């Protein structure tokens, strides 16, 4: 059984419709790469899963439970519930808390009571993934550099004991070397029976690291990654 199954998803903001009747399913233990140019709906797809778009329609089944449905208002009203049911999102840009310390930022990611109790251990394992954070725990998150902020944001998502991790544009605005390291670290994390979706513009970053790659073009899923990215040749190894 797939861990996440989207059927007939449409979503958008106000009069703008971004996703058009989209189907997608994610299997347990799978690392899925979602590539596509700017403005083709990658972020909207991830936000739709957690209910953060302006409106949405269509079914989203997560671990056999329906979390989607038609919704015309109430942005983010269901998000906390969805997130608590086991989906962690590292949103685009940094939705970190600039006035809190790095430690508090990470702790805020441990939102289930089980993960809150084991937050020290979880913090250590996040630091294992992102060693630079170890020295910065006391620092205010607002004073970090872009790469460090992104690490905090992704690390915060890893603090929860979620089944599904959604990582949105880990490389956005980062130097190539740093984003390479970040994505490599992401792809080495043990997700067990869970799954991870990484949305990314930069195809070579994901190539060979994820189990499956899908292209997004104009709000629809294209199996052919090259089509979504225009002239970039499709990768042979990344395809199922």
């Amino acid at each position, binding site marked *: 059984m797939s861990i996440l199954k989207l059927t007939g998803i*449409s979503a*958008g903001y*106000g*009069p703008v*419709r971004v996703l058009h009747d989209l189907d997608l399913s994610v299997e347990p233990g799978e690392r899925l790469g979602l590539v596509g140019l700017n403005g083709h709906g990658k972020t909207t797809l991830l936000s739709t899963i957690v209910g953060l778009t302006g*409106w949405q*329609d269509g079914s989203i089944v997560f671990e056999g439970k329906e979390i989607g449905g038609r919704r*015309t208002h109430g942005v983010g009203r269901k998000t906390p519930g969805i997130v608590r049911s086991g989906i962690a999102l590292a949103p685009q840009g940094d939705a970190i808390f600039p006035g809190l310390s790095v430690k508090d930022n990470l702790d805020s990611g441990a939102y289930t009571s089980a993960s809150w109790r084991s937050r020290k251990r979880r913090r250590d394992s996040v630091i294992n993934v992102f060693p630079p954070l170890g020295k910065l725990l006391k620092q205010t998150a607002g004073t970090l550099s872009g790469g460090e902020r992104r690490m905090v944001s992704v690390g915060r998502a890893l603090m929860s004991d979620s089944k599904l991790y959604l990582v949105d544009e880990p490389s956005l605005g980062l130097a190539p070397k740093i984003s390479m390291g970040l994505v490599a670290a992401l792809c080495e994390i043990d997700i067990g029976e869970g799954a991870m979706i990484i949305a990314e513009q930069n195809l070579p970053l994901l190539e060979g690291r994820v189990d499956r790659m899908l292209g997004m073009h104009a709000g629809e899923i294209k199996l052919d990654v090259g089509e979504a990215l225009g002239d970039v040749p499709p990768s042979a190894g990344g395809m199922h």
Partner: protein
Amino acid sequence: MSKTSSSPQSKHLIGRRAWRPAWPARPDRVLRRRRYFGSKRSVLKLSGQFNPKTLKREVVLTDKKPLFWLFGLFLLVAIPTAVGSERFLSLFGIICIYAAINVMWTLIMGTAGLQSFATLATVGVGSYGAAYLSITFGLPWPLMLLVGLVLGIAMGFLISLPARRLDGLYYALLTLGLSEFCRNFVTQNEALGGKFNGALFGAGRIVPSDMLTTRLGQTLAFLTTFVALLVALGVFRWINGGRIGLLLKAASTSKEDESFASAIGIDWQRARMIVFMVASGVLGALGAFYSTYIGGTSLQIFSLDLLLLMLAMIVIGGLGRAEGAVIGTVIVVGITQWFTDWGPWRIVLAGALALLSVLYTRNGLFGLKEQMREIRTRRQALHRAAQTTKYAEYLPQQAPDIHDKSLIAGRTFERELREKLRGWITPEIIEEHRRSPLGQHSDHLERILNYFRKAPIPDKYAVYTEVPFQSYRVVALSGLPGVPPRIVDDKTYGSLDEAYHAVFMRRINDLKAS
């Protein structure tokens, strides 16, 4: 006007026609607009039109608002004068004064976009200043009004100073405390009647006090309040409908609008200040007028509850509209002054009305019409979408935002058509086309070909002759003049029929993929 001219209603959207009063026009006379003296504003917005049903010329009243205003104001002045009881006259007198204050407040909150709660503080300063000077130095009432005006402008200047620096809500907070402070000041000041709970009596009146026991005197006093309301409405119209109001409309709703307005050269801050000062001046004069009306003043004018009650009036009527301010005042003052034996419950009722209108309406009583219309179109769209949900290209919640409903219909039709054609694609049809690309075909194939033919030019497939009778290629047209077609693939075809069929197959594939 000829009979064949298109329907005058055609500029309206499908669905609802605007209902406008129309009456036959004299064909021998030219329609002449009347204008207000000294201005270019027309008294009534009239336009000539041709009625396609009766085939007659008509004069149409485009804007019915002036008639409503006239009728409403007539009722406001006629009812109390006709009834003539003292209670009625004083009730409507209070309504007129409060309505005038509320109209000025609307000017500040709506037109100038300043969230100021200093209204009653300004009124109170005008009222106390005028009453104090009148009692101490025996000022006659015209001078009291003048003093009120000057005090109001001064107050407006002082209060508007922080407005330049502060954000909307910060400013609201700052000014909310102002009347409470004024109340404190008066309580502790003996010259202003601090000992007698801030009550001052014996100020000059417009209608002499010995006349006030007669019905004539009471009616006259009421009429003065009505004149005050008319003055306030006139100022509102003059500012809000004039150039400054127009300038401020560009800047009034959001921060981005403000930046945009400055970018196109509107000095909205200055315009805002002017509006604020004018409104404050009138508010001060209204305060002084209040003193002349009741022959003194009292601390009630500074109380937070009165301020909240006035806010309730504005909110119930609809923020930012003069008619809303007046109707809201009539409702709330009517409740609070007429049912005096209900005690505090009447204020609870007024507050509950305000609360309900904030919770359930978008902009009070006068925003209701728009809200209802929106709900209706949304519901219609949902209904329509539910019927055609299989083919709808748009989500129902999106449909109300698209004004041209034919777009939706067109898209729905196209999709339906494509789906039908797709069902007709069979190996037999393809084989039939392969055998003879030109000439007579079966019905289904003919329809499919017709659909292909009406495709738009950009990216339309065509056959390109490299060597006549030997080599043909499939190209796609660019759709732009001067830009050559691009070659689609590297296959060449030996005969024209083969090339035709290749084009057909490409189109079939595109249709399948769509």
